[in-house]
């Protein structure tokens, strides 16, 4: 791809006997919001660390804005790590200025921008507070501000919404979308597929160190060539069996919800439901969600790694830059 902000070609990384990433190709177009999806331990964080040159790949190449990462490129990237990385006993404002200066922003300018941003995220009155005095959500906002103070062209966010309350998730999502509108390329990883579905225009799904899906969200959905019928109702579900439908049946409060794929004409299902005398609460024909596609592609294998924790925890046996 000509105008890729980030390009990975055949990248692999192993830690001892664990393969964290296997032969991964990835291209993040400039200006896109790109979601890196997968369960915990799938290799998302390792991939991000390789993009940032925190880890060196065992094989393959990583290019950012068309070349191998260097000191100058590093100042054009903003990185929000999964584990929050701030000094507990340091003033919020000092912390932000420090991070921006490391990225090459002049001190006075860094201070001005930090103050303005704290104002925007409702933390102006906490500027002089020690970080440890702030709630987790506030700390996350500070961390995010620290990531964008130097006005990066590329923003890499590792699980930016985890552990946040809904209000702050919404605030952060708004800020992310705002950066996107200003032309920043955004790559973020998440195991919350719904977040990606809401924000991203492109996604890459990895499971068990392999890529299982990649492309525009709309294309990925269309590629399944499938529509689901969702029927939520109260009453005896046996009419479904009689009609020979097979699908998932879930209980939602007083209602049962049947998800039926591709079997027949949706109108036929609705007609049979009415004839069976069940009370229909909801009837919907829709494209499959990313989650469903993911589960289909990755299978249960994709989710088995879930409790395994981050693969990077094994320690870098290989080379680091």
């Amino acid at each position, binding site marked *: 791809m000509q105008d890729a902000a980030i390009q990975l070609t055949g990248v692999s990384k192993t830690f001892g006997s664990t393969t964290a990433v296997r032969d991964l190709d990835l291209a993040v177009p400039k200006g896109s919001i790109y979601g890196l999806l997968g369960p915990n331990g799938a290799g998302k964080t390792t991939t991000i660390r390789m993009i940032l040159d925190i880890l060196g790949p065992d094989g393959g190449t990583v290019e950012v804005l068309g070349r191998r990462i260097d000191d100058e490129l590093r100042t054009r990237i903003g990185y929000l790590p999964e584990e*929050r990385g701030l000094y507990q006993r340091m003033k919020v404002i000092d912390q932000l200025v420090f991070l921006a200066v490391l990225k090459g922003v002049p001190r006075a300018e860094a201070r001005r921008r930090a103050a303005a941003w704290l104002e925007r995220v409702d933390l102006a009155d906490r500027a002089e507070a020690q970080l440890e005095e702030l709630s987790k959500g506030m700390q996350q906002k500070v961390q995010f501000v620290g990531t964008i103070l130097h006005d990066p062209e590329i923003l890499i966010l590792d699980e930016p919404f985890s552990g946040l309350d809904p209000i702050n998730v919404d605030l952060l999502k708004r800020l992310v979308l705002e950066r996107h509108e200003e032309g920043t390329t955004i790559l973020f990883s998440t195991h919350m597929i719904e977040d990606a579905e809401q924000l991203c225009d492109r996604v890459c799904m990895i499971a068990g160190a392999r890529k299982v899906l990649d492309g525009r969200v709309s294309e990925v959905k269309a590629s399944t060539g499938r529509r689901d019928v969702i029927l939520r109702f109260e009453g005896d579900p046996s009419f479904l069996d009689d009609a020979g439908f097979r699908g998932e049946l879930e209980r939602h409060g007083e209602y049962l919800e049947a998800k039926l794929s591709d079997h027949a004409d949706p109108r036929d299902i609705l007609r049979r439901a009415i004839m069976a005398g069940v009370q229909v609460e909801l009837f919907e024909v829709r494209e499959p969600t990313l989650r469903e596609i993911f589960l289909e592609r990755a299978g249960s294998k994709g989710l088995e790694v879930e409790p395994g924790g981050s693969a990077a925890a094994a*320690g870098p046996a290989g080379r680091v830059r």
Partner: protein
Amino acid sequence: MSRLSLARIGAIVRREYAFRVKNKWFLITTFGLPLLMVALSIAPAWLASRKPGGESTLSVGVVAAASLRDVDVPGLIVGDSLGISARMTDEDPSAGTDRLAADLEASEFDAFLVLGDTVARGGEAVLLSRSAVSDVRRRALRSAVRSVVTASRLQDAGLPADQVSRALRAPTTGLSVERIGQGGVAHQDVLAGIAIALCFVLYMMFIIYGQVIVRGVLEEKTSDIVEVLISSVRPSELMLGKVVGIEAVSLTQIGIWAVTIGLLSLYGLSGAAVAFSEAGIDIGGFSVPILKIGAAFLVFFVLGFTLYASCFAAVGALVGDDQQAQQMNFPVMLLIIVPFVLAFSGVNTPDAGWLAAASLFPFFSPILMVVRITTGVAAAWEVVTSLVLVVLTTLGVVWIAGRIYRVGILMKGKRPTLPEMIRWVRYG
């Protein structure tokens, strides 16, 4: 290897410095260390000078052979200030230890000083005591025995007994040793005292700030701050910034002390003079080459700090928690503790060949060279050689520590083995 960025290192240095100088530990160590030092340097002298604390008086019964009967033994025991009193007894030294011990039990004495017939010919005197006798008292009694032997011999040669005891009861005098050097005459004891004080400062600063560095690195590592930092700076820049920043903090502290001592001495109240006069050493009238000593201290402090701090930074990067840090710390601490211990014995014999040799070992030089330069025994070529060796070693250690640091800092979980570490250094 591409160039490191001074701007980024500067930002790290600035953060470390601002954070640590504002910290309450800075205040505590700035004021606590001098107090501790003064206490440690004065306490032994003070304890030795006063009557042995809690110790009761020691009444000694002199058991002298017939041949020594004419000597005024009690008069030769100079022990009033040590709480020793002595009287002659009628006991017979040849009676045997068991008999004398039984008699001692029955008597009002605490101890018998047994001077047998052979003492005058170099035989051993015996102190038979109910309880332990302190070192200072033993020394007083030993010198009394020597006087007894001298007195006995003089009397045998025909001098009257009263003249002999008068002559031997002359007041005790001290001995002040003065060395002739480039800076003129300087008092050996004063120089030794200064050397020990400087050693102590070096030792404390290296150890304390070494721990500060280990903790600082560990904090960044365990809280994943390092992830953010490494996406902006290189690990070697981070390590250097940290070492230099904390070094600047320690130099600030030393600056505060130097200015304080300077101000005090303006009022004729030099901290050193106070300590030394308390310790019974007269500093008045002797010139101390302050500039030379100060320069040596500063140069070796900066080099030594960088050397040890880099080692400690590597340790911090290698370990995963405080407990592991304690274990891995030890080898580095030994590099500081060993020369410190050597300095204490070396300061009494600064000319010793072993001290000269040890002071050229780069890891020992920062402490031992300061001792040798302060006591005025280091030759110019030795100073230059050790400087070159220390600078080279420091550069090498910074390089190796940097490589260990940049791999270790991102590593979690178990501690690496030695072969793994060597691999990092070679291929890192």
